[in-house]
Every structure is written in C-alpha cells, then in structure tokens.
C-alpha cells in the first residue's frame, strides 16, 4: 500500500457523534474504518453543546471520551480536515477520492503545545466555534478539547512573520504543504454528514439577524457551556446580564415561509433544557418559552417538561409573529396570547433566543449517488423497517443526515448503521477476493494524537 492509498472495510463520512459512534461500533467488531472529517477536529456539533436532555449530563463528558476513543483506536485511521471529492463503485465496493487540506503544520510532528499561539501576533474572530464572540490566532488549535490536538494556519490572514516557526519546539510548521489526494477503497460507506441550523437571519419578521440581542439556540449553548466564550450568560449588545430571556419556538421549523414544513423534533426539548440551565445560571431571571405546541416525545421527556413548569419557567402559547427592539436594544416580541383571551401583546425581554430548526447539512447526491427526500435529508426508502438503509446497496445513513433527530436517536441509528454495514460485509464475503492482511494503520503516519 502506497502513501496515498488506503484499504478499509468501511468509509465513515462525518466525525460528529453519529460518525464517531458508527466508527467505534464497527472498529470494535474488528473492521477497519476510515473516518473522514471536513473540519480540523472531530466532535461535530455535539462537542459545542452544554448539556444533554433529559438527564442534564455534560456534553463534553460524553463526547470527549468518544473522540479520544476514535483517535486511539487501532482499527480507525482518522482523516481530519479532509473531504470526500468523488466516489466510484468497483467489484469490491467503493473507491473514494479524498482531499486532505493543508494545515501548514505537520500532523505527525505537532504536539499541540500551543507555543505557536502564544507568539502569533494576529487575532481572528472565532466564527467556527464561538460565532465570533471570542478570537483565535492565525495559527491555532481549533479548541481546547479538539482531536487531534494539531494546530493549523489560516493562510489567508497570515503575515508570514515567521514567529511560529521559531517558537515551535518540534519544528512542525511547513508553509510549503500542498493539498494531498488520497484514495480510499472500502466495502461499505456510512454517511454521517449531520445538519445545519436554520440561519437565524432567515426571517425578516425576526429582525433578519440585525437585532443585537436576538441569538439562536446554538449560540446560547455556547453561552451556557463551561467552555463557552464568557464563562457566563451575557447578552451580546452590551454585555449586560439578562434578567428576562425569551425563547421563540418553531423559529425555523413548521414554517412554510422558510420552506421548512417539518418539525425538527429537538427544539422543544433543547429550549426546556436551556431554560432549566438558565434558571441555574441566573436564578433571578424570568424565562419565557413562546410555543405553538410542546412536543416531548421521548423517554423521560414529558416529565422534564413538567419539571420545568414547576421550576417557574413560563410557557406561553402563541407563535411570535414579530421581533423588534426598543431604544435600549431590548427585543420586543409581538404575540397573540392564545390562552389569555387571545389578546395581542408586545412583551419586552433582555434577550431573545430563536429555537432554530434542523436543515440538511449536505446533499450527497453528486458525490455518492444517494438521493435525498423532499426536505433534503437522505432518502430512506423503508424507514420503519431499516431506518439507516439508503437506496444504494452498501451505503448507510445515520444521525441527522437522514432526518431531524436528537442525540439519543442519533447514537441509536449509528449503532444500527454499523450493524447493517457489518451484516452486508458478512453476506458479501464469499464473492470477494481474500481480504488483504490487516491494513497498516494510517494514524501511525498522519493522525498521531497527543491528548
């Protein structure tokens, strides 16, 4: 096997919780799994979240061990900062062309000591992880618990001062790095490409992103997370601690004016969860959730909702039609108070959180030949019987790539996709030539982790 070729059993696309879980479930059975992640670190959306519902367990505490397990697994060559460019079928399965984007830092040499960050003179807003609320250097390790702990350089903003080169103890910095191409041959593919949220500036009635104190729920996750930008909850416009926080439900789901007809399933629960966490972070704050329907469908979810009501979180039935702001940049929501004789009220809060919905993250049609269904999520022809099986034999979908779902269901479908892939490989064993001897682990060369 040459440097730019890799033979594995399964190619997993996407290193969020779905992709990591599917990789681990397959690797633990002895299959070789190549995990390709577009970003410089695995962890996906989940590593940025605060707590999970309905148990209020810490998200990092669940995700970080999985990230480490993936990185250290002998059967998982991990390819971060890489993208699948094209896929072809052959008699053994699939051949994928993967682009490895240059970090300008040698992955095998970098120890993640961050000496380079200390000397780099340029600060950039951290748009990737913190919505621009904090900054990172031009050379940076993506975030504290990133896997791998390898720095990368944003060459567009680099002034080539060379300070990092002098500061780097293992001499890992390499400005001459070029994009590399890697060919991965795999018998099966698991798509775990995740979701994006409805852009919080999509709705002009909600200020189109121009109101200073209207944020979306993912931003609130960061404000609530222990690793967040301020370490406490402050509103963006003036850094004031909000005394009155409102959630606007269905701000991107069940709304045909945004082209989203479906329920995103998670927003009711994450709003209730955030409201509970806010009650802890800001005990004196008034928290209101404006909703059309509260949907608490999972195990323990309804009790979670009832607990929130008992805690004093105000639930108001009525879809917020408009958000404006007063002279102090306090958001004002206009809503029909359906349970209060239908009167229309304009209520002022310090901070408004849009409970944005889930949109398909990526369309795999062009690359993988896997069609998407009407809403843009991967089409699952028989979703009741085999919820991870796509129209393409040997290609499986897991997590939110296949439709809106919460973390519990995502982990479940990751296991299901791994099981489907394993069964497929068992069934197709006889027709294939002998499996080559255990492939040399790719991570030895490129993905050394120094955690």
């Amino acid at each position, binding site marked *: 096997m040459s440097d730019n070729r890799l033979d594995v059993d399964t190619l997993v696309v996407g290193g969020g919780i779905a992709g990591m879980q599917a990789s681990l479930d397959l690797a633990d059975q002895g299959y070789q799994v190549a995990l390709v992640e577009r970003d410089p670190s695995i962890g996906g959306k989940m590593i940025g979240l605060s707590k999970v519902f309905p148990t209020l367990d810490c998200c990092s505490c669940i995700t970080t061990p999985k990230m480490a397990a993936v990185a250290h697994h002998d059967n998982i060559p991990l390819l971060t900062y890489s993208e699948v460019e094209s896929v072809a079928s052959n008699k053994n399965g699939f051949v994928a062309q993967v682009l490895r984007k240059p970090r300008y830092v040698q992955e095998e040499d970098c120890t993640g000591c961050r000496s380079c960050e200390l000397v780099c003179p340029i600060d950039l807003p951290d748009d990737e992880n913190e919505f621009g609320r904090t900054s990172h250097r031009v050379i940076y390790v993506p975030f504290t618990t990133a896997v791998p702990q390898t720095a990368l350089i944003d060459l567009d903003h680099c002034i080539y001062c060379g300070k990092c080169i002098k500061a780097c103890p293992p001499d890992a910095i390499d400005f001459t790095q070029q994009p590399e191409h890697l060919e991965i041959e795999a018998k099966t593919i698991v798509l775990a490409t995740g979701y994006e949220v409805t852009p919080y500036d999509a709705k002009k*009635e909600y200020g189109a992103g121009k109101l200073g104190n209207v944020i979306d729920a993912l931003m609130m996750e960061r404000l609530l997370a222990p690793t967040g930008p301020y370490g406490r909850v402050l509103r963006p416009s003036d850094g004031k601690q909000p005394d009155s926080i409102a959630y606007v439900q269905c701000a991107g789901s069940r709304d*045909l004016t945004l082209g989203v007809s479906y329920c995103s399933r998670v927003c009711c629960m994450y709003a209730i969860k955030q409201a509970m966490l806010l009650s802890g972070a800001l005990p004196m704050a008034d928290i209101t959730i404006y909703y*059309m329907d509260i949907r608490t469908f999972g195990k323990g979810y309804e009790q979670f909702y009832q607990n929130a009501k008992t805690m004093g979180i105000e639930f108001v*039935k009525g879809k917020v*039609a408009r958000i404006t702001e007063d002279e102090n940049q306090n958001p004002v929501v*206009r*809503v029909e108070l*359906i349970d209060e004789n239908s009167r229309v009220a304009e209520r002022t809060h310090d901070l408004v959180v849009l409970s944005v919905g889930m949109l398909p993250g990526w369309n795999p049609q062009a690359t993988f030949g896997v069609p998407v269904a009407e809403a843009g999520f991967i089409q699952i022809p028989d979703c009741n019987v085999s919820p991870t099986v796509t129209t393409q034999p040997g290609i499986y979908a897991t997590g939110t790539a296949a439709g809106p779902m919460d973390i519990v269901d995502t982990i479940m479908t990751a296991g299901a996709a791994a099981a489907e892939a394993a069964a497929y490989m068992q069934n197709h064993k006889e027709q294939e030539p002998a499996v080559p001897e255990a492939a040399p682990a790719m991570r030895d060369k490129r993905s050394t982790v120094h955690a």
Partner: protein
Amino acid sequence: MSYRADPDLLLEIQKYGAADIAACFNCGNCTAVCPLSTEDETFPRRVIRLAQLGVWKELLGSKELWTCYYCGECTATCPREADPGEFMAAARRYAIASYDRLGLAKVLYTSPVLSVIFLVLLAALTALFMYTSHGSMPTDSLRLFEFIPAHVIHDLGIAGFVIVALAGILGAVNMAIQVGRANGLSRDGVRHNWLGALWETIAVEVLGQTRYRQECETEEERPSWYLQKWFIHASMMWGFLGLFAATGLDWILDIVGVKATGTWVPIWYPVRLLGTVAGLFLLYGTSVAIVRRLRKADEPSTHSFLSDWLFLVLLWISTVSGFALEIAIYLPQAPVWGYWMLLFHVAVVADLLLLAPFTKFAHAFYRTVALYVQALKPVPAAELAAAASAD
C-alpha cells in the same frame, strides 16, 4: 351558554373562496402580525377558529370579520400558507350571503353562470322598460330627456333605491342584531356613546379611512400615496359618493326650480363639476384596482373571486359610459350614439345599484355597522352582569 355547530361550515365557506384554511393549526401568527389587532380586537385566528368549529352564529356575529381591511400581511407570513387573509374575505362573502334572507346573494356569489345571466337580464329589462317610453333623438343638440323622459329614469331610480334600501336595511339590521348580541351590546351601551361612535365611524373610519391609511400599508417601502391601497379604495368610495351626491343635488335643484333636469349647463356648473371630479376619482380607483388584480400586484389582489370582478367591472363600465355620455353632451354636433349610451349607462347603473345588497357592494353597509359596534366599545355581557350585581 350553548353553541350550535355545523360540521360542514368550513366546506360551505370554501364555496366562497379560501381553499386552504383547513391547514391552519391555530398558532396565532396571523393575529400577532396583524397591524389592526389590539388587546381586545383580535383576528384573524379567532374568526378562523369559529369557522373550524362550525359555530356559524358566532361567526356571523363577529364584528372582527368586517374590521379587517385585508392588507395581506397574515397571508404573507402564515407558517402553513393557509391564506388567512383570503379566508377573511371568503367569510365576508359567506356573511353577505347569510345576512340576505332572500337567498339572491348566495346565487350571485356561488354560481358564475347564473349571476352573469341575471345581470344581463336585469340590464336588458331596465333598458327595455325605458325604451318603451322613448321619444325622438334630436341631432341639433343632445337632449337626452327627449329620448327617454326624465321622469321615467327618476321613477325607476327611486323605485330601485327603495328596493335597495329595504333589502340593505333588512340585511344590516339582521347583521346588527347578531353582531350586537355576540358583542354584548346593550341598549344602555348604545345610548351612552351613540353620537361619538357615529362620528368615529362615518367621519374618521369610513370617509377618512384612518386605520386603513395608517396601519394597513405593510410593504417595507411604502408606495407613493396615489398607489397606496387605502387611496385606491378611497378614490372609488369618494368618487361613488360624489356622483351619488351630484345626482341627488341635481334632483333637488329640479324640485326647488333652480334648474330643470336635462338643462344644458357648462362644465364648471357646480353640480356638473362635482359629478365630473367624482367620476375622475372613480375612474382612477377602478382602473388601478382592475390592473392590480390582473397583475396580482399584492396579496389582496392575488385571489379574485367572481364577485370582485363583477363589482369592479360594473363600476368601471358605469364610469366610462358616464364619461362617454358627458363627452356626447359637449360635442358640437349631437351624436346618435349618445342616446344609446344613455340606455346602456342607466342599465349598467341599475345592475350595480339594484344588486348592491346582494353583491360585494353590500360591504359598504355591513362594514359600517361593524365599525359602529366597534366604536360603541360594547362591554362584554359578563362584565355588565358583574357591574349590575355590584350595584
């Protein structure tokens, strides 16, 4: 309190438009986005809910049906694309048909073929009736009333006016009772503020179009004043009322002996001038409204029901034929077509006026009644009872 529900009410209203309202899941977006909704005036969701529940009595008694001016903001932002604005329009059509006990409105609204036949027949009969008493067609100057005697048109007009007034009053009283009852309007409540409410209704709301003008222009960039919805509507209304006043004044001048009907007057003669200016307003309003409906220029112009077209087109034809008549009068050589134009004009106006209580025209009565009830600010029955027991 008991309610009577008709499970087919929604299907019945759908005959008058509003195909998608069953999609509504009552989120309240429409009410909250409505610029006219306030603490105690809330629509359209409540009205939609009444229709979904099938409680027709409450629906017909809801003044909110008529205080909506259809800006279309609810339709533009409805998360279900259920088109609440058009539902309100359809429910108003249903209400007009329901307030009319003769059943003519229902036929005119729901059967395009029958209503066109009816309109043509009525116009033809009117023209025929006038033609039976026709005289000569002098060509030295256009002396219309030598062709058709003035008294024939006057008598026809007065007879028509009586019929219209009777049917209109019947419908309006019918509606006022229902709306008054549903809104807890008491005799004391009316006595308390009847004059102030009348001023508020007629001067501020109907003639001044105040809320329509101030609240209902919802486009991000307001168009020039002469293209705003309220002005187009107001030009039609002012134009119609102006022509109505000019006709009435002309008749009064005849009675008091100042000017016999049919006497040639110059264009600057006050009554003629009033009629001409009013006609120009009416021509402008109807023309722009027709163009907007053809182009589907905004939400309210997108759905055009048969009744919308009939009303607008009849108004427009009346106006244009009226101007043709005026031109004929001022031509140096009297054209023969002028006499036929008179027959045509009167026949179309007869269609318009005789059918007013049964067509979209009826909104003029019903909206006024609803605005009056609103201006009276009725106290809900429960509060009245509470106040009485406190005394």
